[in-house]
């Protein structure tokens, strides 16, 4: 049979088809032309006539090429690497390189798109987390010279500094210190604070502050004045300073309000000032009232946040030293007011405020940096692939005298342009991500979260991250360029040369690094998942399903005594008990997993307080409603009244703490006896422990007192009590019925904090859920990028080995053998990465140990599971290129170099 191939190839040359495709078309048309040729011969044509007639249909027909051009995809040739020659002027050269880089990038949209996406994800995640780090940890507090503000509090060796001070301690520090210009004490007014008039009642946020507050914060009211020393004394006038927001929204920005009175918590207070717009102190406060503390106060409730402004030239450390000395002096004068290991601590206010999340935020920033590194490795790999396609051209350019530095400068410019485009995308992603994060962030997890916003530091970070990233991923092809062997590169079959081999090794190293980093990230996410799961499995000590809680916050003259409040509550109990769907109702002064409340206590026979424990006022049905277990003794009942013997029930933690294995029943204690309740109470029961602060903390020692025996001084605490209902069905369905019963009870009463206990439990583990969600997101991103990286390398390797694979198959290799060959190569890379990743994780996850619960940082189960996951992901990423390898047509492959 005549050879038609050359003639067909010559015809197809102008289409510049991919070599494999061209070979296929040549083969197909060759057979067609041959059939025609033989038909013509059989019909009586001469050999020459048959030859030319058969060919002419294909080789003389412009329409064929025209039609084919539209049908077939044309191989894009890489644009030439070098821009026009240097102008000699650096700025002009850079501008030239920049424009050229834009053109080059624009000509390869798929390549550019993948790079930009990977970079945008990496840079965007980093920018988002840095924005939070910046606002919470780096930005100074929004007060003048805020670095001079120092918080003073109780400190115990070995535990986190923090903790409020009592009035006597505050007075002592204020009067004896040399380190501070001024010292102030503040306390929140409580959630029941309200402003009212004839028509409307608003619950507001309020702060009790000493007169020096404004000097310490270095902020004066925008209108009116601060408190005077007289107003801050016991028996001083009832005065109030309004927050700007309350003044605008409730008082219509009334300029004449200074000097007028408003009703605060049912009492008349005269307005003496309005704070400036935007002033915040632990959030936006609506009202400030003076402390009016007795300087000789013996009140040992540690409820005051104490902040001081340092004298010029002094540091927080110096203040700390002085505070420790002062504490010893205090201890020598008032030994009964201090605990054994207690001392004073002084720390910069900003550091103290944000200490709880410092570790978490730096960990998150570390995790997203890993994602960015993986993205960099990916893009570097893609750049190397592209460089491989341009290798011959690069070699030619260098051989004819194009300096390698010029080429490197161009590569770097291209890389920087790509990175800046990716960075811009990342900034948009960060903005979107921050908005999403604000919705999902659990309340109170991150202090200063209201200050999270983009500022110049964030923009600079984003720019720097983009530039650095661009430099880093351009280094690989640039460094490689310097080592190109010109002679080898200029020959045919370029990937068997040293250049091709080094580049292949570099790509493999990058892939191994990607897998290792992805594994480290996924292990972190896995540990968070186990922490979260462990927490969810913790027994809170009571049955959480079908339990509804709510408050009715009685206030005003109708409920100004314990007796009146109790009367209201008992009437409420009757109503709620009779609602359909309610099995039982009780009352407690504080729900578990809600805020806490503690009082000092003393056992009979002791002179000194033994410490402070949780204090709860409850109705007799409380333990039944909560499905808690009475371990010893009995519950409260109707006989435990105001006129009967004073009794108490304690939990197991209290019994262990106070009686260490001995019998708790019939022991006697008084709790809050310094200020609230002098009664010596007999312990009549021991109940199981319940969680209070959080599911991960140990259950605190708790003393329960019957509501009916609440002392007169307990009215404030009683007002914040919660009803708790055991329901037959979904507790939240009872909301409407509850509201109408409360309205029928007293139309002026609100229904507040209505929620199911399941919601409360959910809220308490919300921080761990948040940690897990974020780390999973980062690990998912890292995994995806690493998988894409492996896939890209394997796909490229397969395409480079087409000739070899074709040869093997022509010599008899089966499909599954080829599959195995490619998979083995890929898995070798993957497994190396997994091993490296395990070693890295073993070292790095120790950083997480404070965030974990119930699982160690080097938990072998988690490490093994994640290793298997990564191996599986690697297998999947290798499978598709491997499968494509088995479909290589040996004949086509052998013809194609």
């Amino acid at each position, binding site marked *: 049979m005549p050879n038609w191939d050359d003639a067909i190839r010559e015809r197809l040359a102008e289409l510049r088809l991919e070599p494999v495709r061209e070979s296929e078309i040549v*083969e*197909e048309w060759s*057979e*067609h032309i041959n059939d025609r040729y033989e038909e013509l011969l059989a019909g009586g044509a001469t050999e020459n006539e048959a030859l030319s007639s058969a060919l002419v249909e*294909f080789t003389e027909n412009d329409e*064929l090429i025209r*039609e*084919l051009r*539209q*049908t077939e995809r044309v191989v894009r040739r890489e644009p030439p690497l070098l821009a026009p020659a240097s102008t000699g002027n650096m700025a002009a050269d850079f501008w030239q390189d920049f424009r050229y880089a834009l053109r080059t990038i624009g000509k390869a949209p798929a390549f550019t798109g993948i790079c930009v996406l990977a970079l945008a994800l990496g840079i965007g995640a980093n920018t988002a987390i840095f924005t939070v780090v910046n606002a919470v940890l780096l930005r100074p507090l929004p007060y003048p010279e805020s670095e001079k503000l120092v918080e003073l509090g109780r400190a115990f060796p070995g535990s986190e500094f923090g903790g409020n001070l009592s009035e006597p301690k505050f007075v002592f520090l204020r009067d004896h210190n040399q380190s501070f210009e001024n010292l102030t004490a503040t306390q929140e007014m409580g959630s029941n604070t309200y402003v009212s008039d004839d028509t409307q009642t608003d619950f507001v946020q309020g702060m009790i502050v000493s007169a020096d507050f404004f000097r310490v914060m270095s902020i004066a009211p925008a209108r009116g004045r601060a408190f005077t020393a007289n107003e801050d004394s016991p028996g001083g006038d009832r005065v109030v300073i309004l927050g700007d927001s309350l003044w605008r929204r409730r008082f219509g920005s009334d300029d004449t309000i200074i000097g007028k009175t408003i009703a605060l918590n049912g009492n008349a207070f005269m307005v003496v000032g309005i704070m400036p717009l935007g002033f915040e102190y632990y959030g936006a406060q609506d009202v400030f009232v003076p402390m009016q503390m007795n300087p000789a106060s013996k009140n040992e409730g540690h409820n005051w946040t104490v902040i001081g402004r340092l004298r010029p030239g002094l540091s927080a450390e110096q203040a700390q030293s002085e505070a420790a000395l002062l504490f010893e002096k205090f201890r020598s004068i008032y030994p009964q007011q201090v605990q054994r290991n207690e001392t004073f601590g002084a720390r910069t206010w900003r550091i103290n405020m944000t200490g709880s999340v410092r570790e978490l935020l730096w960990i998150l920033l570390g995790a997203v940096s890993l994602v960015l590194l993986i993205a960099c490795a990916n893009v570097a790999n893609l750049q190397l692939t592209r460089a491989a396609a341009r290798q011959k051209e690069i070699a030619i350019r260098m051989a004819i005298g194009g300096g390698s530095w010029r080429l490197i400068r161009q590569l770097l410019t291209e890389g920087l342009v790509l990175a800046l485009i990716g960075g811009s995308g990342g900034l948009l992603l960060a903005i979107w991500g921050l908005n999403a994060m604000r919705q999902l962030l659990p309340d109170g997890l991150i202090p200063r979260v209201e200050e999270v916003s983009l500022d110049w530091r964030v923009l600079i970070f984003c720019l720097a991250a983009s530039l650095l990233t661009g430099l880093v991923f351009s280094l690989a092809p640039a460094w490689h360029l310097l080592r190109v062997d010109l002679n080898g590169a200029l020959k045919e079959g370029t990937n068997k040369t040293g250049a091709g081999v080094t580049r292949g090794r570099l790509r493999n190293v990058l892939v191994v690094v990607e897998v290792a980093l992805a594994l480290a990230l996924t292990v972190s996410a896995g540990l968070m998942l186990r922490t979260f799961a462990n927490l969810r499995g913790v027994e809170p000590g009571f049955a959480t399903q079908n339990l509804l809680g709510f408050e009715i916050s009685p206030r005003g003259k109708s409920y100004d005594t314990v007796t009146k409040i109790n009367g209201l509550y008992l009437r409420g109990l009757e109503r709620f008990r009779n609602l359909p769907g309610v099995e039982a109702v009780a009352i407690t002064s504080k729900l578990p997993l809600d805020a806490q409340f503690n009082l000092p206590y003393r056992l009979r026979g002791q002179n000194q307080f033994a410490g402070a424990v949780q204090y709860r006022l409850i109705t007799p049905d409380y333990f039944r409603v909560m499905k808690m277990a009475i371990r010893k003794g009995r519950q409260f009942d109707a006989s435990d009244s105001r006129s009967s013997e004073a009794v108490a029930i304690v939990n197991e933690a209290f019994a262990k703490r106070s009686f260490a294995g001995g019998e708790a029943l019939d022991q006697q204690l008084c709790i809050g006896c310094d200020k609230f309740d002098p009664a010596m109470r007999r312990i009549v029961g021991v109940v199981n422990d319940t969680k209070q602060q959080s599911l991960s903390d140990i259950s605190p020692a708790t003393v329960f007192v019957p509501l009916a025996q609440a002392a007169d001084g307990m009215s404030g605490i009683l007002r914040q009590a919660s009803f708790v209902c055991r329901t037959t069905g979904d507790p939240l369905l009872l909301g409407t019925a509850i509201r109408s019963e409360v309205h029928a009870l007293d139309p002026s009463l609100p229904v507040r904090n209505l929620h199911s206990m399941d919601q409360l439990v959910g809220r308490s583990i919300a921080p761990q859920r948040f940690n897990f969600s974020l780390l999973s997101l980062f690990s998912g991103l890292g995994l995806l990028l690493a998988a894409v990286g492996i896939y890209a390398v394997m796909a490229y390797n397969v395409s480079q080995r087409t000739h070899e694979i074709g040869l093997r198959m022509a010599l008899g290799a089966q499909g599954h053998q080829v599959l195995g060959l490619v998979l083995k190569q890929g898995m070798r890379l993957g497994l190396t990465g997994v091993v490296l990743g395990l070693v890295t994780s073993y070292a790095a996850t120790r950083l997480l140990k404070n965030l974990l619960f119930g699982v160690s940082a080097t938990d072998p189960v988690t490490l093994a599971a994640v290793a298997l996951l990564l191996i599986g992901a690697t297998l999947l990423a290798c499978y598709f290129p491997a499968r494509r390898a088995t479909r290589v047509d040996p004949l086509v492959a052998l013809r194609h170099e």
Partner: protein
Amino acid sequence: MLDREVKRGSTEVLILALVQDRPRHGYEIAKLIEQRSEGVLQFHAASLYPLLYRLEKRGLISGRWIEKAGQRRRRYYKLSVAGQKVLAEQRKTWKDFFTALDRVAGINPA
């Protein structure tokens, strides 16, 4: 000779119909069209192969290399599932067209 435009519009259905029964290679398809149309329709390479490749790209036919005993391998095309649907639609369209032609201009294809 048939008008170029009419030919263009009908080539797709011709090819799809011919590969419906069994897979065929390009030369066979061209020869069958010529034979069954008694020379009225002739497809040269310029029309045939670009169209075959377009149909393959659209997923209406699928090509495979087949080597028969004693022969060199050839590329055979067969109808895909999507192609079956398109062929059925196009047959209906052409039928309706001829019915309309008959009603208006008395052109009976039978």
